[in-house]
């Protein structure tokens, strides 16, 4: 379904339609995100707001809309896709880092508020991967070397590496896990010298 997730009316219609078609909604993955890189000292206000709208506001709005039904059915799983930027400072992208950090905390707030309705809310954090979003740092050899040096496992992540952990968090296998961060980062965050 084509939708602009920053448009609440559109989201409302979509969620209602999905509920009507199925009589339930079990899983929401807030994955959509954007990144607009600019130096902090000259970061444009409109880009800050654009990043906020997609990366933090939309996941909250969509979670609220879906929770309406999850609360009714007394079950549900919400997975928020965060980032290494939720933990660490990265150059020239203050909005991305700030709102991924915000999303990480939003997960804990929602996990707390909706646990009584048997809704689990967890974070899934991808490490560095070759996607359109990170193509620039992959193509630049010095940026690539800088990133590879931070990873324990000897390769960059592929999209497929996220699938098992996502299924785990979405399935009954993780029924007692909520408010957690699961990083699929090849050891990036845990690596010392």
């Amino acid at each position, binding site marked *: *379904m*084509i*939708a*602009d*997730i920053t448009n609440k009316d559109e989201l409302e219609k*979509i*969620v209602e339609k*999905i509920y009507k078609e*199925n009589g*339930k*909604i*079990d*899983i*929401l*993955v*807030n*994955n*959509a*995100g954007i990144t607009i890189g600019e130096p902090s000292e000259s970061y444009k206000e409109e880009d800050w707001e654009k990043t906020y709208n997609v990366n933090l506001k*939309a*996941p909250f709005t*969509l979670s609220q809309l*879906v929770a309406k039904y999850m609360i009714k059915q007394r079950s549900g799983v919400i997975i928020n*896709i965060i980032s290494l930027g939720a933990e660490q400072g990265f150059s020239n992208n203050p909005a991305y880092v700030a709102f991924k950090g915000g999303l990480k905390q939003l997960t804990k707030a929602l996990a707390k508020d909706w646990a009584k309705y048997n809704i689990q809310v967890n974070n899934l954090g*991808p490490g560095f*991967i070759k*996607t*359109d*979003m990170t193509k620039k740092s992959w193509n630049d050899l010095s940026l690539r070397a800088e990133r590879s040096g931070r990873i324990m496992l000897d390769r960059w992540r592929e*999209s*497929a590496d*996220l*699938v*098992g952990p*996502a*299924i*785990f968090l*979405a*399935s*009954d*296998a993780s029924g007692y896990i909520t408010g957690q961060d699961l990083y699929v980062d090849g050891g990036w965050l845990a690596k010392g010298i």
Partner: protein
Amino acid sequence: MDANILKLFSLKDKVAIVTGAAKGNGRAIAEGFLRAGAAVYFIDILGKELKKTVDQREILMQNI
């Protein structure tokens, strides 16, 4: 251990929504959920890419 332990990881009969599902991480997750048995709604603002992904999804569904 019971062979049915793998059922714990099944998404059969579950209904899932994935945003940003036209490509990359979102697409991989959405297709993974499909393979695990869920009904998956692919949401994206990128209409053209989404159409391509969903067309391929039908092929993927036939292969399951």
